[in-house]
């Protein structure tokens, strides 16, 4: 376990060169290109989403620029049946796990159906900070008790480590050895509160010791390092990894050190609480050019391929926006549908009341 941030796992340096002594994970070219493409897709999606919000076509939105490597590469380390438990910022991780971008847009457009992820092992976005840590622990525990064999990856931020639920979740995970990976997207800020104000702990990963398992610090803007660290943690969690010799699966806390380039959400103005210089410093670590340089160096992509990717990325995002905006609005009565498996009498009454109201007055009058 590393308490010294200097020990962080890193494979690519800021120029995309493999650092001395590091082993590049064994990924085929197609997968590496997919990783690169997905990161670009996420970046472009993010820009478009912010602009949709600016244009009043979407509500508050939490951007992820700068955090693509941590999300994409970690999610790519999962097997098909594995589960993820995202916070509100993991649009890219969810995309990798099968959540269409149009779904994500619809959620942020205020349409609950964006969270209806039938067939996917992706939990609905968790807005109350750190609450999902317990859900991931519980689901992982259930899988272990049922012999399911899946891994469970839970995402949360640096700020989340201060909440009681983080503590209780990791503590349960340690006691019951559940097949979970706790993936902390330490983007240095919890809205305006810097990492150092969040806790006096030297690293966030180091907190794992309090729960009797390992913590790993990884360069969260190095997609290869993230991929490797997540793969290792998943192997440990499912009993196939380093701890697996004795068959004892163990959770891991991964601290992926990274930076949020943009605002906390579109409602936030980061210039109030942080310097441009800091942002610029972190932008030098941008994961996308880093991976691109690595791929170019290996002859896996060239200008032409990059251009083609850019074009396909634009088209995919444009399609998603069209799909999201083209979906018909939810019906008012939808809000009564999933409160319980079956509507109670009182809900049926209320639904009828609302329907009557809508019939009598129409949307114009009601929503004026």
């Amino acid at each position, binding site marked *: 376990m590393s308490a010294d941030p200097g020990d962080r796992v890193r494979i690519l340096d800021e120029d995309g060169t493999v650092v001395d002594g590091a082993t590049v994970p064994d990924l085929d070219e197609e997968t590496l290109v997919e990783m690169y493409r997905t990161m670009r897709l996420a970046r472009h999606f993010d820009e478009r989403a912010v602009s949709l919000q600016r244009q009043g076509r979407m509500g508050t939105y939490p951007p992820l620029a700068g955090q693509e490597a941590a999300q994409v590469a970690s999610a790519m380390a999962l097997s098909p049946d594995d589960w993820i438990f995202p916070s509100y910022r993991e649009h890219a991780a969810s995309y990798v796990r099968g959540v269409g971008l149009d779904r994500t847009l619809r959620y942020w457009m205020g349409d*609950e*159906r964006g*969270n*209806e*992820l*039938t067939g*996917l092992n992706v*939990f*609905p976005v968790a807005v*109350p900070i750190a*609450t999902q*840590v*317990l*859900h*991931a*622990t*519980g*689901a*992982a*525990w*259930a*899988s272990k*008790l*049922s012999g*399911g064999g899946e891994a469970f990856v839970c995402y949360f931020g640096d700020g989340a480590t201060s909440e*009681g*639920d983080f503590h*209780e*979740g990791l*503590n*349960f995970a340690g*006691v019951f050895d559940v097949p979970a990976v706790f993936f902390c997207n330490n983007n240095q800020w919890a809205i305006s509160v810097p990492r150092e104000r969040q806790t006096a702990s030297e690293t966030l990963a180091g907190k794992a010791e309090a729960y009797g398992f390992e913590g790993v610090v990884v360069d969260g803007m190095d997609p290869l390092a993230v991929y490797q660290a997540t793969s290792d943690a998943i192997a440990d969690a499912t009993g196939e990894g380093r701890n697996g010799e004795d068959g004892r699966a163990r959770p891991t806390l991964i601290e992926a050190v990274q930076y949020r380039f943009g605002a906390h959400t579109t409602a936030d103005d980061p210039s109030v609480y942080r310097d441009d210089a800091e942002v610029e410093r972190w932008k030098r670590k941008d994961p996308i050019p880093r991976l691109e340089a690595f791929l170019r160096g290996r002859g896996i992509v060239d200008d032409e391929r990059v251009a083609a990717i850019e074009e396909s990325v634009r088209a995919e995002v444009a399609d998603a926006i069209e799909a999201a905006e083209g979906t018909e609005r939810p019906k008012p009565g939808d809000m009564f*549908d*999933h*409160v*319980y*498996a079956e509507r*109670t*009498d*009182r809900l049926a009454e209320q639904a009828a009341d609302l329907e009557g109201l809508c019939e009598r007055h129409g949307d114009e009058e009601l929503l004026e």
Partner: protein
Amino acid sequence: MSTQKPDTQNLTLVQAVRDGLKSEMHRDEDVLVLGEDVGKNGGVFRATEGLYEEFGEDRVIDTPLAESGIVGTSIGMAAYGLRPVPEIQFSGFMYPAFDQIVSHAARLRNRSRGRFSCPMVVRAPYGGGIRAPEHHSESKEAIYVHEAGLKVVVPSTPYDTKGLLAASIRDPDPVIFLEPKLIYRAFRGDVPEEPYTVELGEAAVRREGADVSVFTWGAMTRPTLSAAESVADDGIDCEVVDMRTLSPMDTDTLLASFEKTGRAVVVHEAPKTGGLAGEITATIQEEALYYQEAPIERVTGFDVPYPLYALEDYYMPEDTRIEEAIRETVAF
């Protein structure tokens, strides 16, 4: 109590909890119990006694001391497909889990549009009257009833306890199951050995009467029935309705009784202000004002923190207060 039939046991309410858990655990291997001291120790009220030995440590699990942890992990378990029955040692210790209960358990189905659900039963001993220490006598059912997506159940007999618990465990939605510990061992009742359910959402008329309806639940059912007997001596004919399920509430039975009697008293242990007597009163006068012949009286706990036990008997509604309220209501 009636004599024991071959296939019934004569159980206390807490034994019926245990029997209900046991028979559901036999019926469905996805059912599991977790919480503080529920395993080896069999629960501080012995509600899970013997289950650890019978079902093993993977289905009867002693957890670390963390209520949000217990409920939050149960939500994850339920979403995965199990049917967890977390115990919170006393209902006064559910507050640390309140966020998980209202922000997640109550909303998981809705938030995921049915992709995930939360078939979980949070059990907790509830209510006052047993000379317990501070924070051990809470009766805050109202705060759970106010939360859409939860069901809230309070049994008052051994038979109902097993049946309502089974129905709760089989229910596809999260249930807050509050066990009136004052009557955990106060009396016995016949309980079939076979699994059975008592449907959620149905009140029980415990005593029929024509003059006034008294609506109550849990441990208050007994003093209410006893008050009803006392006033019967003076020719007052009380109907006593045990609500049993507080959410969803059986407004049909509630209104039918009121329409018959035109007078009502609501009895609960919880503090008056913001308690469910208000909800019941509002429902009645919305739907049945025409029938109303007297103000609806509330016999409740006072608006004070539940007192330490030297004063708790003054705090808890009992026969005398209920009797007075019935008489006043009828005399109006």
